[in-house]
């Protein structure tokens, strides 16, 4: 086996992979050592990143490099071997290696799909907390626990969404801070960022929780559809997370009879009297046209 140490980044891997390809080292002879990995028992000395015998650089479709870069965000032990194997096969002219129907390609596409999905989860399930107006630092903070390394590539979305607002996202591994003009990425995440994101002084969640409870239709209770779309691992960081089991058990305990939210059913109702001869009015003294 040949040891291939690099800094753990895609750019670093790409450099080493290129020189291995030029030296004609087949995938089964390479052990990838990203940042923090140690080698195996029978490994030989590391290969130098600069090729000894220079053959012309292999021609790799640009699209493949993009796919590999994206798939490299998938967290799995030994994430680099598959990528080099596919690179090797395509460099040999076997383009099926990139396709979802192929034995390696299907693994690649599984990872790509999971990475795309996790970026989407960031956009969907991250929750910002506004900070007090006079507080120093970012206006909005969020804590998120992604399953793959998608923060750096996927968080630009929030700069488009939030205009000139300043915001901070902290995760267990890395963090981003948008100062209104530029994105600052840090890995590992500074502990000050993690503290800010995990202890927001936010008293304004009640409205959102009221909305969530009321827009739920207990007559349509469907736990499996919920868990497919909103994986349980996200519940603990969502403000509405603790509400979910409560709403489900209320629905099972009788609220499922009709669609009405319990908080609405508790209140008194109001029928509207309507006569065609007169301008429409409302029973009692309530004028429907005045905001109340």
């Amino acid at each position, binding site marked *: 086996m040949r040891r291939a140490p690099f800094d753990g980044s895609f750019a670093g891997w790409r450099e080493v992979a290129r020189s291995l390809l030029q030296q004609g080292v087949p995938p089964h002879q390479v052990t990838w050592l990203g940042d923090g990995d140690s080698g195996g028992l029978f490994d030989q000395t590391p290969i130098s990143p600069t090729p000894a015998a220079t053959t012309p650089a292999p021609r790799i479709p640009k699209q493949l490099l993009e796919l590999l870069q994206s798939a490299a965000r998938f967290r799995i032990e030994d994430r680099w071997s598959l990528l080099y194997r596919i690179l090797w096969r395509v460099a040999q002219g076997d383009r099926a290696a990139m396709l979802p129907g192929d034995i390696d390609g299907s693994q690649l596409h599984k990872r790509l799909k999971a990475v795309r999905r996790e970026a989407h989860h960031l956009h969907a399930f991250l929750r910002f907390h506004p900070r007090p107006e006079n507080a120093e630092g970012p206006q909005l903070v969020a804590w998120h626990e992604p399953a793959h390394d998608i923060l750096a590539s996927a968080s630009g979305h929030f700069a488009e969404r939030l205009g000139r607002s300043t915001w901070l996202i902290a995760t267990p591994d890395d963090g981003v801070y948008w100062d209104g*003009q530029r994105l600052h990425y840090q890995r590992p995440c500074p502990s000050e960022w993690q503290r800010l994101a995990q202890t927001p002084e936010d008293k304004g969640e009640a409205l959102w929780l009221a909305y969530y409870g009321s827009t739920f239709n207990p007559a*349509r209770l*469907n736990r499996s559809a*919920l868990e497919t779309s909103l994986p349980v691992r996200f519940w603990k960081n969502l403000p509405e997370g603790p509400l979910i089991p409560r709403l489900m058990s209320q629905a099972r305990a009788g609220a499922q009879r009709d669609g009405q939210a319990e908080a609405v059913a508790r209140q008194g109702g*109001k*029928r509207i*009297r309507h006569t065609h001869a007169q301008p429409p009015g409302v029973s009692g003294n309530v004028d429907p046209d005045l*905001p109340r």
Partner: protein
Amino acid sequence: MQLIEKLTVLADAAKYDASCASSGAPNRSSKGKSGIGSTNGMGICHSFTPDGRCVALLKILLTNFCLYDCQYCVNRRSSDVPRARFTPEEVVTLTLDFYKRNCISGLFLSSGIIRSADYTMEQLIRVAKLLREEHEFRGYIHLKTIPDADPLLIAEAGRYADRLSVNIELPTESSLIRLAPEKKVLTIKQAMHSIHQGESEARAEKRAPRFAPAGQSTQMIIGADATDDSTILHTAASLYGDYRLRRVYYSAFSPIPQSPNTVPFEAPPLLREHRLYQADFLLRGYGFAVGELLSGPGNLALDIDPKLAWALNNREHFPVDLNRAEPSMIARVPGIGVLSAKRLVALRRQKRIRFEDLTRLRCALEKAKPFIVTQDYRPLQASRESLLLRQQLSETPAQMALW
């Protein structure tokens, strides 16, 4: 009334509208600009409630005071529900607050009919205008269109909204006459026509002001009347054809509190709704015609999906050789979707398709097996009777808990 109490009432009042899509809007970004909000064509579901439905937009009524007495509606004037009304500013505050928290991607605003159709429509437009002009909000806005409103108001709404929708409500005119006496099919369709007109004009001229770029949709309530699936799908198909609707939403009728005797008080027919969505998808995405899915009056089968039902009724087209067949025919194989069909066609340019390739593409093999031929596989069941196959492939209908 406190804002939070109004929100509780007016979200409850709005939730029977199934639409929550936030997709189809053009690219808008607030990066480096004042104001907030972006859209990029893709919708985002920010949360899901325990009914499994997505929360993409703040879906509320401006008010649930209503002069109409539609029997299926929780807000009908004879309904004994708490009533509330937001000011336009309150809706703006809620939208911006939820948006900054990343709880929603925009607003879906509807209203009970107060004073008149025009007045109600003006109120809805005012909210959208406030958001767009005063707060430079670039997120998604879906406005419900009041059918009898002046076409000029609909034209104005289209300048602020990404999507407009008019609900067809029920699949037939006779049901509408019986259950929604104040609504008319004619005016509903006129409103759809106005929106369609606005879209076509905006598309025809490059420099024309934008008009509801995410198009229009509608909703049909399923199970409040006795209409069968065949009629429902024919109605949907003609709406797609006549007004180029982006979506028809099918909403299983949910029992409402103090239900009038004119509508059922039963569990919502969720499986039927699901089959209708599947059939709708086959009409829009797979080139099926309604007549292929249901040759006469009646309902879609509940125990098998409509594509499988079609295949079982049309065995002369099967088995399909995946190494030779047209892509559109591959997509008609039960268990193989449009995406897998495309991938198979790409793969067969490189090599012969084998059975294990289907496993990797994660096709629903149990369903597909009797209907396909690959390099190394021919179905034993190719000659098996459809009735037997159906027994083998049908999903046992799950009993709803507590109903």
